């Protein structure tokens, strides 16, 4: 291990270059991972956090939440067939009036607040404790200058509402979600009559004839563009990792080839192949860890200075997972160099002038 370290110390430039490549590529991996997570989050977090086990849509919607429409007749039909607790859901995009400023786009999730499940509250009241005219908003609305118990005004209907609580992780199409009760009437904002997108049911094993029943997860996947976006990002991430592992493995392999003569000398004076292999592995692990640490720090740094609108989300958990994956792949890549070392003949040391 001492050898590994001494060599790195004496060949700073060479190993600095390898580390730099690793740092740059890993930074990109983190960046893209965070961006894909962030974009996915901003687009659909509210849907993935729906308080339901099953989502009932009309047949024509083909699983797409916003294409589905259910009127009061449908609701009572579903009511007859389903024993479990359920709440209708209407998704309406609108905006809030703001004095002297541009209006703020929001999404109303109109539900039956008495029957909709408990959403995570970070401030204020629970959804079941709401009184008339009170709503729960996503905390991203705070960034637009609103705070608890502020009164908001819908710009289309002029309806005034009071923010009685803030929830978290409820954004949809990059807009904050506002939970309103059926009594506020947003379900009839556009069509004149009451129309809902879906019925949310707690409990599994439901069959409702004449309607589509699917899980929240399936609902998420069928959001137009969602799977496509996530799949493209996955391809990018996969290729980035493959490329970076390939580059660093080849780099180490080339260095190993350069040192064939030196390893031959070490073998000739009695050093075991496994000791040399350990030295190479130690260097790979060390440099990969350095690369991970620096790129991780650089990533956190860049997130601090980027505008808040950039949707970045990268949990420490995911960061570590990516790091460990990269480390394992790099160690596998280093086996190429180790294999080369096992092939080196100590005779290399004889009869050659450097």
């Amino acid at each position, binding site marked *: 291990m001492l*050898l590994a370290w*001494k*060599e790195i*110390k*004496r*060949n700073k430039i060479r190993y600095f270059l390898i580390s730099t490549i690793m740092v740059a590529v890993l930074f990109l991996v983190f960046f893209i991972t965070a961006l894909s997570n962030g974009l996915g989050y901003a687009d659909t977090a509210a849907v993935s956090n729906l308080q339901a086990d099953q989502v009932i849509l009309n047949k024509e919607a083909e699983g797409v939440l916003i294409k589905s429409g259910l009127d009061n007749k449908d609701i009572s039909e579903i009511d007859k067939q389903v024993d479990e607790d359920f709440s209708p859901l209407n998704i309406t995009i609108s905006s809030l009036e703001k004095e002297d400023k541009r209006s703020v786009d929001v999404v109303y999730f109109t539900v039956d607040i008495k029957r909709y499940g408990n959403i995570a509250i970070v401030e204020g009241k629970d959804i079941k404790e709401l009184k008339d005219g009170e709503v729960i908003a996503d905390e991203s609305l705070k960034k637009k200058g609103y705070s608890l118990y502020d009164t908001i005004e819908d710009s289309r209907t002029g309806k005034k509402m009071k923010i009685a609580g803030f929830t978290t992780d409820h954004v949809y199409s990059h807009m904050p979600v506002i939970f309103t009760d059926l009594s506020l009437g947003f379900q009839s904002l556009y069509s004149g009559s009451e129309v809902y997108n879906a019925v949310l049911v707690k409990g599994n094993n439901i069959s409702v004839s004449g309607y589509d029943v699917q899980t929240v997860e399936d609902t998420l996947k069928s959001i137009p563009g969602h799977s496509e976006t996530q799949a493209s990002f996955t391809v990018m991430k996969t290729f980035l990792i493959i490329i970076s592992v390939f580059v660093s493995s080849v780099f180490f392999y080339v260095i190993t080839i350069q040192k064939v*003569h*030196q390893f031959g*000398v*070490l073998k*000739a*004076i*009695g*050093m*075991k192949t496994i*000791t040399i292999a350990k030295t190479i592995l130690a260097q790979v692990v060390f440099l990969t860890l350095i690369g991970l640490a620096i790129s991780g720090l650089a990533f956190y740094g860049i997130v601090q200075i980027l505008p808040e609108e950039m949707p970045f989300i990268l949990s420490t958990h995911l960061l570590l997972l990516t790091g460990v994956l990269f480390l394992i792949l790099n160690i596998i890549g280093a086996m190429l160099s180790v294999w080369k070392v096992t092939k080196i*003949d*100590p*005779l290399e*040391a*004889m*009869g*050659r*002038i*450097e």
Partner: protein
Amino acid sequence: MKSEILKLESVSKDFGDGDTQIRVLKDISLTINSGEFVALVGPSGSGKSTLLSIIGALLSPTEGLITLDNQPMHSMSKKQLNRMRADKISFIFQSSNLIPYLTVREQLGLMATISKLEKEATDHRIDALIRDLGLEKRKHYYPKEISGGERQRVAIARAFINDPSIILADEPTASLDSKRGRQVVEMISMEVKSRKKAAIMVTHDDRILDLCDRVYQMEDGILLEK
């Protein structure tokens, strides 16, 4: 008192196989005792280096017996040969072949680690060798920072660290001018005599043969004493 260190009996070595087989070494017998410094001369391609590689446990003979310190090397496994190299055999190469990223002191320390020697005793020996070979001022220098002659002296010191039975030198003067070359060979000779080791040196340089006890001539795989 002289004791037998190395003994070769009818050693032959073939390269290639079938039709293209070439007998590089033909029926070589040789005995070297402690305190003896033997030179091996001959044109290139005569098999000098092959013989040295066989004695150095880097190659196995096709036929014949080799014993080093009464241990039969011809019947050893690769692992055992590796152990022999680490414990009983030392090399001095054409170029010094030092590890570029270790200081003079560390080169010697590494050799001690490979041979699994006890730290305290070795530290003592390393310091003694550094003194004997006049490297004290260069102890903490890297190979790049010292002269070719000094490098070769470090290589000699490295060869003696593990207290080997035999030293094998493959043209140790090839990269040095005649004055420095002679100094280096004098040092090898001195160390061999004072520590009662055996040594074989392959060389092209006739001017240093007077420092050796015996000179063997190698020609077309046959060994003759001059």
